């Protein structure tokens, strides 16, 4: 007998060991998320995927699915708060969508649209953050980093390297690079690495690819993120990944 849980009144099957997010993804139920990415160890830090499980707030990307769970996901109260959490990310860094190459392909931006985010709501921190353009093929704009650790996990789990890490504490957190100089050019990062392509914002960009896909023809220009999430097998469209990674994830 298959086990089931209920999300917003819909009965959904799950396998033992799956998280709520995994069960929902298989069933085609979209739960907003930023730090989660299928195929990587769940992190549970962005808190966008928070759902109510039997009345209690739980992080769905890390919380195990269990028989008979009653999960509230798509409620106004939760989405209002998810919008505010997204706004926190926007004011923490310096996210200027109109001038960002990632615009239209950006998960952070797409989640903002999905949650009907129309302003930044909170006072800006105006954080002073650097840009690392030292690497011949890849650049880091720290202004856009949301500390999701996907690049760190991708480097470790997919590329077998340890190029990225998150350092610091509290609001002074920062992305750091594993090289003697601290610069990307002296690290082991290669442009074909999964870590170079996984960033859900415009913090890690591939050089000389800017505007190859014109604004208006990008991933989220015609579809919202909840529609696109299930267009391909993964929770992220394959066009957002380099060919090598996309092929790999289709095999999964």
């Amino acid at each position, binding site marked *: 007998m298959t086990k089931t849980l209920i999300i917003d009144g819909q009965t959904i099957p799950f396998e033992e060991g799956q998280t709520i997010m995994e069960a929902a993804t298989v069933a085609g139920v979209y739960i907003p998320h930023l730090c989660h990415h299928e195929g990587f160890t*769940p992190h*549970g*830090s*962005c*808190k*966008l995927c*928070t759902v109510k499980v039997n009345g209690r*707030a739980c*992080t769905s990307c*890390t919380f*195990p699915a269990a028989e008979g769970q009653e999960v509230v996901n798509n409620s106004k109260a939760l989405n209002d*708060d998810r919008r*505010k*959490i997204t706004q*926190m*990310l926007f*004011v*923490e860094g310096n996210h200027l969508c109109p001038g960002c190459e990632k615009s239209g392909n950006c998960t952070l931006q797409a989640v903002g649209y999905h949650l009907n985010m129309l302003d930044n709501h*909170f*006072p*800006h*921190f105006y954080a002073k953050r650097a840009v690392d353009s030292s690497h011949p093929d890849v650049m880091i704009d720290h202004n856009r980093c*949301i*500390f999701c650790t996907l690049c760190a996990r991708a480097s470790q789990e997919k590329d077998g390297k*340890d190029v*990225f*890490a*998150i*350092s*610091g*504490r*509290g*609001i*002074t*957190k920062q992305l*750091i*690079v*594993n090289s*003697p100089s601290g610069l990307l050019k002296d690290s082991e990062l290669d442009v074909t690495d999964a870590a170079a392509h996984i960033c859900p914002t415009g913090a890690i960009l591939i050089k000389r690819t800017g505007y190859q896909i014109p604004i208006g023809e990008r991933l989220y220009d015609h579809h919202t993120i909840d529609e696109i999430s299930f267009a391909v097998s993964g929770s992220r469209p394959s066009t957002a990944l380099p060919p090598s990674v996309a092929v790999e994830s289709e095999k999964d």
Partner: protein
Amino acid sequence: MKEFIFDLATIYGNQPTHLLQILRAVQSRFHHVPEKAIEDIAALLHIPRTRIIAVAEFYSFLHLSPRGRYELLISDSITDHMLGKIELMVYLSNKLRVAPGQLRQDGLVSLNNTSCTGLCDQGPAGLVNGYALTKLDHTKAGIIADLINQTTPLPEWPSELFSVTDNIYKPGLLLNCCLDKGAALTSMFKRGVSETLTEIDRSGLRGRGGAGFKTALKWRFCSEETEQERYVVCNADEGEPGTFKDRVLLNSYAHEVFEGMTVCAAITGSTQGFLYLRGEYLFLYDKLQKILDERRQAGLLGATVLGRNFNFDIEIHLGAGAYICGEESALIESLEGKPGIPRNRPPYPVTQGYLGKPTVVNNVETFLAAAAIAVNGGNWFASAGTEKSKGTKILSISGDCDRPGIYEYPFGTTIQDILNDCGTSGVLGVQVGGPSGVFISNKEFNRKLAFEDLATGGSFIVFNNTRNILDIVQNFTRFFAHESCGFCTPCRVGTSLLRNQLDKITGGHGSAGDVVALEEICQLVKTYSHCGLGQTAANPILSTLERYPELYQSQLKKISYEPGFDLDAALETARRMANRNDKAAHLAQIGEDHD
């Protein structure tokens, strides 16, 4: 340096689990963690350099840039403020000719604030190169400044500067219970190990850190795990401002605490224990090591405890200035030599803790109680307290009272009774459970100390009528922003938003919607944060907003909106460039004139 690092790494078996201990030693020797050390440690421990940087940048007592050969930190707890800390800091800063947060040009001394050092009963307190300084005043500050300017080595400083007293004013069931060395272990083996667990169950003992999970249940869960490698951890990272009972317990009841851990090890089938000692209690380290040695000599620790087929030993790990490490899963991460970032749960430590193995983490006081229960039985303990909260609770009382110190009460005691004992008058309110607890007003002193009413880890700060509530809340709110580990969005961003928003209001820049906006951030941080730190970080604001709403409203300007920045000041650069300073080149903050 290479040799120093090599020897250090060798002492710790080149184990990454000891990275924090290694970095503490490097910081102590070189007054920062130099680039060269990072390189060498990375090579010796076979870990990426980023891991070392992440640890160095996480803990307040580790630094990547040089601090003074004398690193002076002054405790920033509200109780230190009440004892004159702010004025003392100015005085010290002048005497030492260095601004707070700075390193003096000659590299001799650096001065800064630090979170509560657990000496609230004898503040203002501080740390010099990690060692506690107590009851600081102008005289002592002058002496310290002279000693530093004369570069007198620390061991030659007058011992009065480092004098720490216990200040036990009201001993109860536990503090009066003087156990002979080995008594709890002997009783346990005589009664039977599983029968002893039954006694602990009967005692109704619940975790003394504040959360109150049933101790016997936790130990049973651990003992029932299929994984045989298990660990016992004593959480002596009492970082909650206003708490210092563990300092006293480890100073005067360490044998009993270690014995409680050993009882736990026998019950759970563990062979290795850890005492995670907060860095601020460095002054206890040597003494505790000596006690562990004594216990090994006496056959109370080691390969054959009491001559039985029972192997257990205890290792001390020092923290390095991170309140979050009091959270049990963050503590375990720190024990593993990583930044203290709380884990996702489940799995809970009792199934997957230290190195992924079943681990019991309990408070110092819990282990003390367990040892006493092993000797005296469950009924002895359960006879005190209330139906839902058995036994006694040890309180650290500080603030506006005649006798700040340690008091032990049966659960169910009223706040008024406690206030009568410690000598108070004109009390405005009491912060029960520290900043993460609750502020209760003088209309609520009939409330009781109990898990079902006022649960507390032991912090009890008294405020009299001369104190400003918003100053208190501001101190607490800044504390949480400083201590947030930064893992999750709501706490990382939210605690800083709270700090800024509260500063705006108390600074007189708040307008109509600003208290509502403050409350909105409070709810987000409370509901969505990953761990207890974030979930309680808004408590100081929420509990005072509930009791004194008019206090917040009275800070607001009678305008509907004020920009988040100073408009006129923002024009300064433009004025300078245009070489203008006439009336038209200035802007007033909008809306200031009308109601």
